[in-house]
């Protein structure tokens, strides 16, 4: 580290001279990069502090490194020049890149090497399968979410709809939206955030439709996108049709659309379950949640995981490995997991944490916190719904979102847009796969 030696060097020397020849035992620093700001960033700092206070040997130091993609990019740049942090929280999009990189110490290996076990390692199946390879855990599940539906009960009432029943199908959303618009309860009826994640990736998995070949990349490197099938086209056609009818408002990429829901400008929104913390804080209306809507006539799959997991980076000393193993054990603790779920709205990821929450009556008191967990544990895990594991994932996502935007701007039909996305996206997949041939 250049900074401490260069700038602190003289200061340290002076301090040592004053104190005597033997330095006091300093804590070993473990750097931890992440891409979270706001309340969740604060919670991450809180976790680090809890851990640091709990023992005397290690000091976990969280650092914000930009948005999720920027954090991954910064990690890569740092690794290439051998200045990588000890640990990094990387979004699900980077999973394949990390797995293939050879730059990480798999979590199962670290724990075995250090003889430490994670108390709450009985992770719920969708979480575990997403971050495991050959049945072994590669990264530590941390902030996992999935997509659910939120709706504004006040607007439902105003439109003469039953406020206690979330629309469960696309047909029901359409019917509800028509009433909402007709009753002038809201100008925007239906919207969603994270366009590719909610309206392509989740929807395909949820309806047991393939997203890419090789079981979405779980069997081997995927080289072909599969989203331009009859299902995908029908889905996008529906969106385009709703948009023309004024029932659907496109709210932009990432989570830009979310304020339209909390601000009371949109009646129904599909987005991350981790949005709930913000809704609880900011929404000045009665709201409810429901499962992802279904499109009639297709199979039952499951919704998939999003969010971040913790990766342990190669290139650190044995003593630091020991500290990281202890930190992972600390993260897996039931109490911590239950607390994390309660304050952030991320999924409770271990069965023991779920049991604890149930015993406390948490889900009864907070039914909306139950929606995501209920949805993900009631779905069917199939080859199409265990997750998506592809290289150049961010590029594929960009491509899908750009094509969705072109379609909604009326430049392409749903079929054309999806065909183009498949063509460009598959090139990205092939590009990645060819590197690891």
């Amino acid at each position, binding site marked *: 580290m250049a900074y401490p030696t260069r700038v602190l060097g003289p200061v340290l020397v002076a301090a040592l001279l004053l104190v005597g020849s033997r330095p006091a035992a300093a804590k070993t620093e473990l750097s931890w990069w992440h891409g979270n700001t706001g309340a969740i960033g604060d919670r991450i700092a809180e976790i680090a502090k809890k851990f640091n206070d709990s023992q005397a040997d290690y000091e976990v130091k969280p650092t914000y490194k930009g948005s999720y*993609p*920027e954090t*991954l*990019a910064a990690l*890569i740049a740092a*690794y*290439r020049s051998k200045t990588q942090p000890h640990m990094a929280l990387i979004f699900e999009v980077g999973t394949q*890149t990390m797995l*293939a*990189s*050879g*730059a990480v110490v798999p979590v199962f290996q670290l724990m075995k090497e250090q003889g430490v076990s994670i108390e709450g390692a009985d992770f719920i199946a969708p979480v575990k399968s997403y971050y495991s390879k050959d049945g072994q855990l590669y990264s530590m599940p941390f902030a996992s979410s999935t997509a659910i539906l939120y709706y504004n009960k006040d607007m439902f009432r105003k439109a003469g709809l039953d406020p206690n029943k979330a629309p469960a199908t696309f047909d029901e959303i359409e019917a509800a939206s028509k009433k909402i618009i007709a009753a002038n309860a809201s100008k925007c009826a239906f919207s969603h955030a994270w366009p590719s994640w909610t309206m392509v990736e989740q929807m395909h998995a949820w309806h047991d439709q393939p997203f890419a070949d090789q079981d979405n990349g779980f069997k081997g490197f995927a080289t072909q996108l599969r989203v331009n099938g009859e299902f995908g086209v029908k889905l996008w056609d529906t969106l385009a049709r709703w948009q023309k009818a004024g029932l659907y408002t*496109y*709210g*932009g*990429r990432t989570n*830009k659309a979310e*304020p*339209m829901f909390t*601000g009371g*400008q949109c009646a129904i929104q599909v987005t991350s379950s981790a949005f709930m913390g913000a809704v609880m804080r900011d929404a000045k209306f009665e709201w409810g949640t429901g499962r992802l809507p279904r499109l009639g006539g297709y199979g039952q799959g499951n919704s998939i995981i999003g969010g971040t997991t913790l990766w342990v980076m190669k290139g650190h000393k044995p003593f630091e490995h020991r500290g990281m193993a202890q930190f992972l054990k600390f993260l897996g603790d039931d109490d911590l997991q239950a607390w994390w779920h309660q304050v952030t709205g991320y999924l409770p990821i271990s069965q023991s944490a779920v049991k604890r929450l149930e015993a406390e009556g948490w889900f009864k008191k907070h039914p909306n916190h139950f929606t995501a967990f209920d949805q993900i544990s009631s779905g069917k895990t199939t080859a199409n719904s265990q997750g998506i594991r592809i290289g*150049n994932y*961010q*590029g594929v996502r*960009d491509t899908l*979102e*750009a*094509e969705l*935007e*072109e379609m*909604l*701007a009326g*430049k392409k039909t749903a079929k054309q847009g999806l065909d183009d996305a498949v063509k460009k996206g598959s090139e*990205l997949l092939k*590009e*990645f796969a*060819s*590197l*690891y041939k």
Partner: protein
Amino acid sequence: MKRTVFRNRWLPYLLVLPQVVVTLVFFFWPAFGSLRLALYRTSPFGDRLIFAGLDNYTRLLGSGEYLQSAVNSFVFAFGVTFGGLTASLGLAVLANQKIRGLAIYRTALLWPYGIAPAVAGIIWLFIFHPAYGVLPYVLAAVGSFQFNWLLEGWVAMLMLITAAVWKQLGYNIAFFLAGLQSIPTSVLEAAQVDGADPVRRFWRVVFPLLSPITFFLFVLNMVFSFFETFGLVHAVTQGGPGHATEILVYKAYNDGFVNQQLGTSAAQSVILMVVVIGLTMLQFRYAEKRVTY
């Protein structure tokens, strides 16, 4: 060329040393790094490195998206440059009048230059915010115009140009004012005696005298909008909708930094370097000429 020169065997080398070292280490070294990287396809973490020859370049030049981002860059750069120069020249002429409170006006026109593109982006992002921004609200109320920059590419582009022109205005005005004030009053008085009306006087006498500055600002604004607007695009549109506001620098960043296509991104860097060096030469030849008369 100077006639008077000092003679010293080693001093000139010592004097240029810091700059030469900085240039070698932080320009030539990275530039060669990019040149080399552009010949390979690499995995993100660098564990795979496959020689690709000129593949990265041919693929880029054959890709519709790259060509579109080049077109976007030109549209954006010309929009910013012409919009910005016209507006700031007009304002500079206004502010150069012999009127009271000139210094205050000048100050009030100058300050947006101090604002970081990233910060300007955040401010404009909020003004344009589809849900509670003031501009979409006003436009929807006044002309029932749907200010949908999330889907309409040209609206998003117009929005970025507005923000960039705003940010650059103070800088351009400062230079135009400087130019206007360095025009000797005798020239203007002579023109006045000739009886030309103010508008013709401006085009016939003032504007030609300003042309060196105009050209200088033209190059500078082109460079600014091609390269320094990264923070703005990053904060406001991230290149969308579709690829409508993906300008070259943003694409190079996005491909390399976000999508980890290091080889193609390096090739884009190389192409951009060539463009910048070309612009530099242009500026140079012109500046050299100007010094000689």
